[in-house]
C-alpha cells in the first residue's frame, strides 16, 4: 500500500472523480441525447433485491414503470414485469476519452431502460446527462482557470517586476475589473452575438469570458510575491553576476510564485465550474441538446418543474464532491507551502 501525504491524497480523489466524468460513456448507461417519449419526468427507479412474493434475488432488478391510469405524470411499478440489472452490457456506441470507439457500458438492462436518477421532459436519462454534462462544465472550469492564471501571472509578474507607474496602472486596471458588474456585462456582450451560436462556439465563448473576468485576483497575488522576490538577496546576487531580466524572472522569481499559482488553481477551478453553471442556467452557455450542469438545471426555471420533479435538482449536487476535493486540495497545498516556509526559515538559522 502506498502512503500518500497531504495534498497528494486530495489530488488522487480529484483525479478519480474526473476520471469517472471523463469516461462518462462507460459509466452512463445511455446516450445523453437519446429520448424516450413514453417516460417523461420518470422519478428515479427503485432497485430491488426482494420481489413482491418475498423471495430474495442475488441479481438486483427493477420493475418496469407505466403511467398510472388517469394521470399524465404519475408512474407506478408494474409488479409482474421484473427486469434484471445487467453489468457490462453492450449498448449505445460512444468514444472513450473522445478516441476509442466502444459499446460496453457499466450497467444496463435488456427489456427496458433503467433510470437510476430519473428522466427529464423528453425521457432522457438524467444520470447519463449528469455524467456527460460534467465533461462540459469541468472542462470549461479547468480551461477557464488555466486562461485566468495565464493572464494573471503575466500581468502580475509584469507589474511586480517593473514596479513604478506601470505597476500602479496595471493594478488600477485590475481593480476596475474587480469592480465591474460582470453578469450584466455578459448579457450585453451576448446581445452583440448572433441569436444562435453553435455548441463549440458557445463553449469557447464561455471559457474566454470567465477567463478574462477572473485574472485580477491571481494577478494581485502574483504581483505581491514577485515584488518581494525581486528584493531577495539571491535575485540581487544573480543580477550581480550579469543576469538579464528574463533570466531572473524565469529562473528565480517565477518559481517563487508556484505555490500561490497551484493554490489559486485549486480554488479557481470549482469557482469557474460554478460560473459556467450560472451562465448556462441563464441560457448563455452551451445550447441544447448538449448537456452541461448549468443547462440541466435550466429546466428549473419552469415553476411546474421546480415544485414537481425533485430529481431535476440532482445536477446541482453533482458539483459537491468536486468542490470538496478542490477545496481540500487548496487548503492542503496552502498548509504545505506554510510548513515549507517554516522549515526553510528554521534551516536558515540552524548554525
Amino acid at each position, binding site marked *: 500500500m502506498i502512503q500518500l501525504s497531504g495534498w497528494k491524497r486530495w489530488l488522487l480523489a480529484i483525479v478519480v472523480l474526473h476520471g469517472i466524468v471523463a469516461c462518462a460513456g462507460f459509466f452512463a448507461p445511455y446516450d445523453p441525447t437519446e429520448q424516450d417519449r413514453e417516460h417523461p419526468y420518470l422519478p428515479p427507479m427503485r432497485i430491488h433485491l426482494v420481489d413482491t412474493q418475498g423471495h430474495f434475488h442475488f441479481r438486483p432488478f427493477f420493475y418496469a414503470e407505466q403511467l398510472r391510469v388517469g394521470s399524465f405524470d404519475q408512474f407506478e411499478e408494474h409488479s409482474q414485469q421484473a427486469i434484471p440489472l445487467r453489468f457490462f452490457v453492450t449498448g449505445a456506441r460512444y468514444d472513450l476519452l473522445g478516441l476509442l470507439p466502444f459499446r460496453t457500458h457499466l450497467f444496463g438492462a435488456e427489456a427496458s431502460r433503467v433510470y437510476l436518477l430519473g428522466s427529464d421532459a423528453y425521457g432522457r436519462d438524467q444520470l447519463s446527462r449528469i455524467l456527460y454534462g460534467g465533461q462540459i462544465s469541468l472542462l470549461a472550469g479547468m480551461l477557464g482557470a488555466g486562461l485566468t492564471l495565464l493572464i494573471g501571472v503575466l500581468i502580475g509578474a509584469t507589474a511586480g517586476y517593473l514596479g513604478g507607474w506601470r505597476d500602479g496602472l496595471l493594478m488600477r486596471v485590475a481593480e476596475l475589473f474587480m469592480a465591474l458588474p460582470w453578469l450584466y456585462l455578459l448579457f450585453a456582450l451576448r446581445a452583440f452575438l448572433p441569436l444562435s451560436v453553435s455548441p463549440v462556439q458557445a463553449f469557447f465563448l464561455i471559457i474566454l469570458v470567465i477567463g478574462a473576468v477572473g485574472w485580477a485576483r491571481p494577478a494581485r497575488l502574483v504581483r505581491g510575491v514577485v515584488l518581494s522576490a525581486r528584493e531577495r538577496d539571491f535575485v540581487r546576487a544573480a543580477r550581480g553576476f550579469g543576469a538579464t531580466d528574463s533570466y531572473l524572472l524565469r529562473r528565480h522569481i517565477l518559481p517563487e510564485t508556484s505555490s500561490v499559482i497551484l493554490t489559486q488553481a485549486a480554488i479557481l477551478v470549482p469557482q469557474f465550474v460554478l460560473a459556467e453553471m450560472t451562465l448556462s442556467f441563464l441560457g448563455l452557455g452551451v445550447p441544447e441538446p448538449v448537456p452541461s450542469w448549468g443547462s440541466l438545471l435550466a429546466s428549473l426555471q419552469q415553476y411546474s418543474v421546480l415544485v414537481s420533479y425533485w430529481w431535476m435538482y440532482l445536477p446541482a449536487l453533482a458539483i459537491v464532491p468536486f468542490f470538496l476535493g478542490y477545496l481540500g486540495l487548496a487548503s492542503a497545498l496552502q498548509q504545505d507551502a506554510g510548513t515549507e516556509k517554516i522549515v*526553510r526559515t528554521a534551516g536558515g538559522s540552524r548554525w
Partner: protein
Amino acid sequence: MDRLLIVEKIEKRYGRAHVLGAKQEVTALLDVSFSIGRGSTLALVGESGSGKSTLALCIACLERPTSGKIVFNRNEITVLDEKQLREVRPQIQLVFQDPARSLNPRFSALELVSEPLLVQGRLDKREREARARALLGQVGIPQEKALQRAEEFSGGQRQRLAIARALSLEPKLLILDEALSALDCSVQAQIANLLMELQGRLGLTYLFITHDFAMAGHLAHEIAVMEQGRVVEIGAADEVLGTPNQEVTRRLIAAMPRLTAEAHAPRAV
C-alpha cells in the same frame, strides 16, 4: 599604488512618497569618498544603519548613487546604462551577509556555483561543471556534496558556496558585506584564512564590510569608519586601531572582545 576602485563624493538618497503631505527623503550616504588599492583589503567598519550595505550595493552596480562618481578599473561606472552595467557587474562580486537568503534554496551546490558562468554564457556544460567542481574544492566543499541542495548545507558551508560562486567569474573586486558576521568564531576564522589565502593566490581586492573591529584589524590593510552615512575616519589599519580620532571608532574598538582587543590595540591608559 594603483587604485582599483575610487569612490568620490557618493550620495544616496531614498525618496519616499508619503500618503499625506510632502515627499520624505532618507539620506543613506552623504559625501562618501575613499579608494582601494589593487590587491589590498579595505575594511569598512560601522554600526548597523550607518550606510555600509547601501554603499556595497552602489559599488556592485546594483543601486545607482544619487550623485557622485565611482571609478572602477579606470572606468567611470556611474555613467553607464543598464546594458553596459551588465558587463561590469561580473568583475565586482558581492557576498551577502546571510547565505540562507543569498543562495536560491532550490538550487544544488553545483548549479549555484556554475550559474554565473551559465548566465555569462562562458564555457560549455561540461567545462562549467568541471570549473564549478574545482571551485567547490577550493573553498573546501567535499565533492560528494556537490549535488546537495543549498538548504542541506550548514551556515559555514553555505557561505563557502557563496564565496565560490562569487569567485567563479574571476572578479577583480570582492565585496564581503558582513559575510562572516552570522557565523560562529571558529568558522569565521576558517573563512577569514581562506579569504587571505585566495587573496595571496589570485591577487584579489577586497572591500570587507563589518561591524567587528577585531576581524577588520586581522584582515585589512586599511580601515574606514562610517557613521550615519559618512566616512568619519580612514587610514592604515594599525593607525586607526592604535590612535582612533573619532568617538565612534573608540566606541567600536571598546566593543571588541577583550582578548583580541588587547592583542591588536593596546589601549592607552
